């Protein structure tokens, strides 16, 4: 049974149709890499799954939670999927610990001591337990992104959406973030990630989705997609890399 079901999803900004009917089913534990040219709609797709954008047509459901445009359904959905952003988006006025605890306390009403225990555990997982009391601006980009991952994990989501989470990092910091993601994948977390790290996609992902002009143009296991691209668009795209 699929964990995430995306059916016939269309999304337009005004006249500009950005997603032109996306179908994608994701099984539990799958790690999916979404690749494609700039403007092909990769970010928009992830943002739709998290309800940050409202879709015009089609349906999205995550573990039976339907994406509907009201606060109750949105919240139910967002409790199941976490999202990591390119720009980290940590809360600058809170400490690292505060960042990881906040939503547990205000959304899930977890009591503070328990939230703190979970926060410490999650920070441990990303190797940053010692930064509990630091503020985001005292951390490197790689560390900030790992905190963002811990923050999402603390909500105990069943899937994570990652939108180019290493693109804003200096090259030497990319590895530490990817190592965390690799570990999550190994532990069986369902991951949907937009990435330009082709080597990582090849090593870690179970399937690769190539998007082109608002459509899923090619899907397959990485060995096939990278070794034997079927369409000229994908060939050209891979040639660029």
């Amino acid at each position, binding site marked *: 049974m699929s964990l995430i079901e995306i059916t016939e999803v269309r999304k337009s900004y005004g006249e500009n149709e950005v997603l032109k009917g996306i179908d994608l089913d994701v099984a539990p534990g799958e790690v999916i890499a979404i690749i494609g040219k700039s403007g092909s709609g990769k970010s928009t797709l992830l*943002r739709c799954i*998290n*309800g*940050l954008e409202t879709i015009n047509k089609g349906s999205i459901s995550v573990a039976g939670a339907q994406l509907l445009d009201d*606060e109750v359904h*949105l*919240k139910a959905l*967002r*409790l199941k999927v*976490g*999202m990591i*952003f390119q*720009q*980290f*988006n*940590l*809360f*600058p*006025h809170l400490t690292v610990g505060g960042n990881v605890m*906040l*939503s547990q306390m*205000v*959304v*899930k009403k977890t009591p503070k001591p328990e939230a703190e225990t979970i926060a410490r555990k999650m920070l441990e997982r990303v190797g940053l337990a010692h930064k509990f009391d630091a503020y985001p*601006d005292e951390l490197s980009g790689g560390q900030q992104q790992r905190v*963002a991952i811990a*923050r*999402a994990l603390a*909500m105990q989501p069943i899937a994570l959406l990652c939108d180019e989470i290493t693109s804003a990092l200096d090259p030497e910091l990319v590895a530490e973030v990817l190592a965390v993601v690799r570990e999550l994948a190994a532990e069986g977390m369902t991951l949907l990630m937009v990435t330009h790290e082709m080597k990582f996609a090849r090593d870690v992902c179970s399937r690769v989705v190539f998007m082109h002009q608002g459509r899923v143009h090619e899907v397959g296991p990485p060995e096939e997609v990278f070794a034997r691209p079927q369409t000229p668009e994908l060939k050209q795209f891979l040639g660029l890399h």
Partner: protein
Amino acid sequence: MIEFTIWDILRNLLLATRWTIVLSFVSFLGGGIVGLGLLFLRISKRKSLRSLARYYIELFQGTPLLMQLFIAFFGLGLFGVDVPAWLAAGLALILWTAAFLGEIWRGCVEAVAKGQWEASASLGMGWLQQMRYVILPQAMKVAVPPTVGFSVQVIKGTALTSIIGFVELSKAGTVVTNATFQPFTVYGLVALIYFALCWPLSKSSQILERKLNVAHRNH
């Protein structure tokens, strides 16, 4: 004719300054509360509420404070009540202050990065939770310098209430001038007293602003 020493003049002016301070304080506080309401209307999800707040702000920012005072003074009188000057003064200044503070604060809320809204939404927070725990704490930090700066405008604004007969520093200046025939000295002193009230606020606003900018650059 009685001779007035400069101390006589100054004492009378300072006594009236109390009322300038009280009125400023009340206007700022009241304006802050109403302004907060306006802010929430201005950034609400309902378009009609947003427009309502926008028209309010345009009206109060687009007409002279003096006219607002006149209308409060004579308009309330239409209800058959005899309006004391202090009431009209307080009411008009509160409504006027609210328009400016509401607009200043909206700017501060909108200055919070879009990513903060998205990150908190993706963690499942509702609008009120986002506001309370993520957006407002950040907006408030940015809001302090311009808010302190605007308090100077409020103090200066209270001078206009002398025109509808509220006795504060400016009115006292006119009264004392008429008694002493020393307009140069009296209005000079009045100006200096206003300066003594306003300048520390202006200066702290500037210093806070600079601190904030330095903090931002280090981020």
